């Protein structure tokens, strides 16, 4: 890989994972009052991995990318405070589906020409786990999803992936898309000097329409509802009692 590496890291703004999610009574969305918004945890791992690759290479540029409203600047500033170099906010005031999001990111990648796109394997709000793969296909790039280890040797990138039943290793030349799994790294916290510096780092806004990609959603959410709650059962007094009810009442052993 070239000494100076350019990495594009798409980040999504999502409710804090500890938030209790409530569906609005009319089923049109979730209640957003009292929600703390954060960077999607898997995207945070992506930011961290990009920082580590840059640190290892000696130089490089890390560009954060979000697609959303002005308030999304907040999460981009957090990523800049972690150490990313600049950020792009593609302003879109209506919701886009996964395919449109992937097209927007692919178009920004075409303009910016990064060697790597590193993205979280899934966003913890819609739990789709689609966008990284869709970016790769749109660009005709190789992909390594669910990455737990990323290494470079010469022009080749080797990625260990967490798959069913074990660990798979893939290799490919750059450019490529990598999606992060839990154990790739532990993201750093933004330092105070980092937060100060982040205020002065460039954050560019571009309107989504200017990218010239198809945006009309084909995946439509008709309605949302809360799942039926499971009822709590009863507490038992002893291990003997537990084994007895599993045997004679639940008949599972």
């Amino acid at each position, binding site marked *: 890989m070239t000494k100076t590496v350019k990495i594009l890291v798409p980040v999504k703004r999502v409710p804090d*994972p500890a938030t209790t999610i409530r569906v609005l009574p009319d089923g049109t969305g979730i209640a957003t009052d009292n929600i703390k918004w954060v960077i999607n945890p898997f995207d945070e791992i992506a930011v961290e991995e990009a920082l580590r690759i840059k640190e290892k290479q000696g130089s490089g540029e890390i560009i954060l990318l979000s697609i959303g409203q002005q308030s999304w600047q907040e999460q981009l500033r957090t990523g800049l405070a972690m150490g990313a170099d600049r950020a792009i906010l593609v302003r879109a005031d209506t919701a886009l589906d996964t*395919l449109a999001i992937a097209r927007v990111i692919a178009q920004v990648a075409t303009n910016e020409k990064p060697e790597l796109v590193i993205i979280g394997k899934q966003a913890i709000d819609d739990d789709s786990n689609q966008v990284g*793969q869709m970016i*790769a296909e749109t660009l005709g790039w190789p992909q390594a999803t669910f990455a737990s280890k990323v290494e470079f040797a010469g022009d080749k990138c080797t990625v260990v992936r967490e798959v069913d039943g074990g660990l798979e290793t893939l290799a490919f030349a750059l450019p490529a898309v990598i999606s992060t799994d839990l154990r790739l790294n532990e993201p750093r916290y933004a330092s105070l000097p980092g937060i100060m510096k982040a205020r002065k780092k460039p954050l560019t806004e571009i309107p989504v329409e200017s990218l010239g990609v198809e945006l009309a959603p084909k995946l439509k959410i008709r309605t949302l509802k809360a799942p039926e709650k499971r009822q709590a059962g009863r507490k038992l007094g002893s*291990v003997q009692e537990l084994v007895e009810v599993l045997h004679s009442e639940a008949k599972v052993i």
Partner: protein
Amino acid sequence: MGDVIVFAEHKNGHFPKTTLVAVNAGLELAQKRGASCIALITGEGIDGPAAEIARYGVSKVIALEDARLAHYLADATAQAIVGVAQRIGAETVLATATAIGKDVMPRVAARLNAPMASEIVTINEDGTFVRPMYAGNVLATVELDGPVHVVTVRATAFDAAKAGDSAAPVEKIGAELDTASLKMEFVGFNEIKSDRPQLSEARIVVSGGRGLRSGENFKTVLEPLVDEIGAAMGASRAAVDAGFVPNDLQVGQTGKVVAPELYVAVGISGAIQHLAGMKDSKTIVAINKDEEAPIFSVADYGLVADLFKAVPEMTEELKKVKHS
């Protein structure tokens, strides 16, 4: 028109339950649409698996025999699937949300310029699907527009298809691949060997959490119970994060979703992300020393106890039950 293609994943020449689930969901969808369900398999030397999957109620099997598909790779497999979908004019391409299904199907969707619904749990009569969001705290009814759609199904939400007496015809063809555009190389697979049942197929799952305190305790305290009861072993994300056990065992929003007959949660507090992966289990047992732990709110049977005492005791009790 309107046909459903099921990407039928096989492993060492056999079909895991997760694949038979996809076939069943494909059959259900095709039946609701008045269309046919076609199984698609890819690989090298696949006559055996092609003949086997032909017995599961599909109207046809398409076997893409190609050395370039011998090892699964996302770019080549997506091209192969899309080639078949376009040739047939399929309306839906469907697979189970396994590691491979999750990896390849979004590429298929992008290549087909088709919308995709991940991990559906219900196929509605009106053509919409239901899928969980927000770690299972929300169920969304979604609609896919356009002439072709891509869907992955959640393995626990559908039954496995059953083999019948008759077999569908097998059409064996070569894959249409643009070799110059294929850039991924398979280097190796490091299998985590286990004699225990697979998490996604087990009748009983015993999972450990941070309460186990170490990987060593998983071995010495939890594993004897797991083996005594003939269970698959799982873990919470906290236990995986702490490095006690491999990520392969993670049950939850970002790990595996299981729904066994019996789920035993040991030393797991029950974060919503964990509940997302197991709350559809038939019977849930929780063992935790903290009586306020959220896991008790979904457990049929709770035991407030020190797991280091209760788990070995339970293993011993089960031995007695077995021998009585």
